[in-house]
């Protein structure tokens, strides 16, 4: 099998959420001596782009995306183990988490994976994260971006509090928020810097924020 064919098969396996097949092909790519970084980009990332399209077209729903993400994760685990430390994730550092009171982390986990595959180093605080923890983690990791998620209209206000704390303590840090109840108006009122309506636009939004960070610097 040649390289191109493997990339295509692997991205198709991601789209069809065939976890074992993705893992198998990831192993195969290593046997073939392919660069794992390239495989992540041309097979896994490419697969998730197709998944994003299917979601936009309403052919796929959150459950399918979740399963595709898991299939991708299976490949990612194998490939990342072969990448020398420091050679990926150097696009920037992002702290991510679902805010206090909110245990809905499906969307957050998908976003995290998209960012990892996109070349960022992601520090995942998990779900139901006490608000001050976001600031502590930014200080610990010297991150550039904080990404927060909330699924409930009753917990969403927590994000506003974190944004206020971040502005106070780390004004250079940019904040992006997401979650089903988040609207453009909420982003404006909370004073966030960025917002991804779906996981499909997360990378685009992160790139934009990093550009602004560079300009500011």
């Amino acid at each position, binding site marked *: 099998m040649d390289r191109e064919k493997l990339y295509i098969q692997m991205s198709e396996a991601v789209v069809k959420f065939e976890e074992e097949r993705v893992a198998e092909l990831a192993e195969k790519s290593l046997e073939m001596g392919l660069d794992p970084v390239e495989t992540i980009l041309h097979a896994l990332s490419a697969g998730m782009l197709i998944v994003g399209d299917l979601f936009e077209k*309403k052919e796929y729903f959150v459950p399918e995306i979740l*399963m595709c993400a898991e299939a991708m994760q299976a490949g990612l685990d194998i490939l990342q183990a072969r990448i020398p430390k420091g050679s990926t994730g150097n696009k920037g550092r992002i702290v991510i988490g679902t805010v206090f*009171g909110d245990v*809905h982390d499906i969307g957050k986990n998908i976003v995290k994976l998209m960012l990892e595959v996109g070349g960022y180093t992601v520090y995942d605080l998990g779900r139901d994260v006490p608000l001050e923890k976001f600031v502590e983690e930014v200080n610990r990791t010297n991150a550039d971006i904080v990404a927060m998620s909330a699924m409930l209209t*009753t917990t969403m206000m927590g994000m506003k509090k974190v944004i206020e704390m971040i502005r106070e303590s780390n004004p250079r840090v940019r904040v992006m928020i997401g979650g089903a109840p988040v609207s453009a*108006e*909420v982003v404006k009122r909370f004073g966030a810097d960025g917002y991804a309506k779906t996981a499909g636009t997360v990378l685009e939004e992160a790139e934009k924020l990093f550009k602004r960070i560079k300009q500011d610097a």
Partner: protein
Amino acid sequence: MTTLEQMEHTGSYYPAALGEPEPMSMLASAAYTFLGFEGIRVPFDLCVEGEALGCKIRDGGQDSPPSVVERAFGEKESLHIPKNVFDKGRFPAVFKAVGMLKKKFGDEVTIYAGVAGPLTLLGYLYNAATVMRWPIKDPARMDENLNAAVVFILEYVRCLFGAGCDVLVVIDPSASGDLLSRKHFQRHMVPTYQRMRKEIGEPVVLHICGYTLDFLDLLPETGFEAFSFEGPKVQVRTAREKVGEKMLLVGNIPTYDVLLFGTPDQVREESLKALNEGIDLLAPSCGVPVQTPTANLKAMVKAIEEFRKERK
């Protein structure tokens, strides 16, 4: 619709109001006595059922309702209902509060009780990420567990009506169109709701927030009297077109963009628009954040009065 200002007004705060009958009924009654709405609803969160069935929950302090932090069942376990479950957790407090409200306000306003819908309940018991896979990977398990959830919910509902509740609100956000395709909604949820309908003689409002456009036209098949939905994701006009005249429409004032951030004037405008487009029961789209200003909630009530005067 509980807010900090209503807590101050009644002197009944979270978390006491979430689990003790007196403060629960006091805080709930503020919707009528303080804001002027024609309905009172308890309880305030969706974890009551999960808690009694074995989920570990964590109290959210004064600003937010509790949340489920540990699931009741592992992926492979079947849904087990403990003996005397309705004596457990906060169930007795909820029944007592319903009874107190019925006695005190039952002649004046509608007493609503909110229960977690079957899919949402399964999400709490098993983890939403697990449940969500069933329609695709194991449709039989989906049906089996939905059935088990319905058996439990029906038993709970009987207790609620026994305690004095007038109208039931089945809150099932996990069945939203972001998570379920039309195909799966039709295959699994419509028959599930129909089964509930058959057993519940009293009026039922089905609430599904988020994106529901894909299956609005299927909702009358459930047999429920009313559908409550979220604006601006679903507009009143569209809902009416697709749902038809068989169901009352409830909603759909946006919680953040209008009720929290907006001015009373904006609330009035949005409310009149919804009423003129045919909303039958004006209500917030979804759970309102506790910081929501009283003036904005009262503006909804004023808009209803204004609308009725014009109609006369």
